[in-house]
């Protein structure tokens, strides 16, 4: 298998097309413009591929809902403010149990914010974002290789659970280049009975989210909740680094996790034993996996490029079993590993010793 050097945004597209994505609808916004650019050029070369630059973000999400209902693997992408616009559509897809992949290349917020890398959309992504009792699976890649692997996995998970899946990365992941190897995608498993491709002489089928009878709607909600429970049990993924003998553990995801790893490596030379716990799925959050670490390690530092959002999930997971500190750089500021190492060292001196 050949290694190629590609930027994160391009990698997501290439992986999606290889995974069989045949519909992409998107609207430009920095820092994910290269995604739309790549799809514009390459989707038409894929057999049966359809690319539409939509008139708005809202149109794009509704187009992928339609394509998905018709049986295509479909994807849309945007950056923070654009993702806010898509929320109604995502909620609707969750209600209709339509698979689909939504890519959020986060930028500084709130509001229009700026175009620098940030992690301020954690709540929006993991709590559903739109209205109603629903969840989206959220994948947070930290390397370009993972961008490729998780994009392919996103389509499989979306089909498996008939639910929208979000890839949550940031401007840095989207813009940076790293060597990547595209693995062979798994064959698609998706029952034809969920596709609307014309009834022919058979019985007509409906996919709809408007259920006016409250008892029926309650039943639908419980059905979805049971599905989310299965996902919570079976799908959490995480990575551990340098956990053995660690006196303190940094919890970080995506870009922040890479900066944290750089900081940890620097501090190793000073004799500080620090580990890294990196959630790969943000929802479902690897709660049990983190909690089991608290039997051995009692000091945790959450680092995010936000004012503290994943922090809440870490608190829920550790439930008072451990001491939890926080360091954040919101609004598009990206600290260097040296800067973070200073923060970690101070907390380490204060809490561990």
């Amino acid at each position, binding site marked *: 298998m050949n290694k190629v050097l590609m930027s994160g945004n391009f990698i997501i597209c290439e992986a999606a097309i290889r995974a069989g994505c045949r519909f992409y609808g998107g609207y430009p916004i920095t820092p994910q413009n290269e995604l739309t650019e790549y799809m514009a050029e390459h989707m038409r070369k894929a057999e049966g591929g359809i690319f539409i630059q939509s008139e708005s973000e809202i149109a794009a999400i509704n187009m992928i809902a339609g394509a998905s209902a018709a049986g295509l693997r479909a994807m849309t992408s945007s950056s923070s403010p654009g993702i806010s616009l898509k929320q109604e559509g995502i909620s609707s897809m969750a209600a209709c149990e339509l698979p689909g992949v939504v890519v959020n290349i986060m930028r500084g917020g709130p509001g229009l914010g700026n175009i620098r890398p940030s992690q301020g959309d954690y709540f929006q992504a993991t709590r559903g974002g739109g209205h109603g009792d629903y969840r989206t699976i959220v994948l947070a890649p930290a390397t370009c290789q993972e961008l490729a692997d998780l994009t392919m996995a996103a389509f499989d998970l979306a089909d498996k659970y008939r639910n929208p899946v979000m890839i949550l990365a940031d401007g840095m992941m989207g813009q940076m280049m790293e*060597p990547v190897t595209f693995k062979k995608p798994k064959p698609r498993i998706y029952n034809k009975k969920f596709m609307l491709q014309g009834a022919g002489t058979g019985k007509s089928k409906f996919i709809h989210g408007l259920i006016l009878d409250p008892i029926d709607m309650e039943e639908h909600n419980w059905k979805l909740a049971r599905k989310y429970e299965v996902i919570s049990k079976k799908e959490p993924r995480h990575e551990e680094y340098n956990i053995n003998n660690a006196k303190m553990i940094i919890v970080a995801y995506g870009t922040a996790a*890479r900066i944290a*790893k*750089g900081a940890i490596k620097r501090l190793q030379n000073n004799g500080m034993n620090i580990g890294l716990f990196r959630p790969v799925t943000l929802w479902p959050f690897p709660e049990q996996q983190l909690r089991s670490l608290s039997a051995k390690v009692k000091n945790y530092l959450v680092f995010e490029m936000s004012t503290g959002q994943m922090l809440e999930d870490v608190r829920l997971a550790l439930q008072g079993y451990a001491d939890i500190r926080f360091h954040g750089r919101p609004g598009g500021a990206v600290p260097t590993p040296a800067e973070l190492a200073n923060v970690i060292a101070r907390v380490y001196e204060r809490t561990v010793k």
Partner: protein
Amino acid sequence: MIVKTIFSGFGGQGVLMMGVSLAHSGMNKGFHVTYLPAYGAEMRGGTANCTVAIADEEIASPVASEPNFLVAMNSPSLFTFQNKVIVEGTIFLNSSITNDRPHRHDVKVFCIPCSDIAQDLGNIRVANIIMMGAFIKVTGIVTSEIYLNSLESIMGSRKKSLAEINRKAFAAGFDYLKN
């Protein structure tokens, strides 16, 4: 081993190209590499910079706290980044358009008049490749052959004429620095 380099200059000087070509060369030699451009609402004549990390192990952070090398293609780049360079690091300076010199005495400085050499070669746009010639000679991260082959593979076959001028430019930069 991990080596980090910041390339910086005006937009249009081929600063990002320098980074991409070095990252490609590093990958082709079998190293782990990351390339991180500073993106923004930039334009020709604005500022551009990128960070390339090359290592023989997994690269944790693509952000450089203390780069080993700084390639400054203009004065603002020198002022922005000179204090980040690691002690005993190296600064490469496009001395054609930069009258300022680094105020640090703990780093090595190589002044290469790339814009002048490029003009002598008849194409101002190869100033970046001239700088890369000098950069590869001093740092020895990859061989000239690997670098030039990588460069050609990025440029693609549609620009055959460019390959020749690039090779000339690279050699000019390489030979400008005496051993």
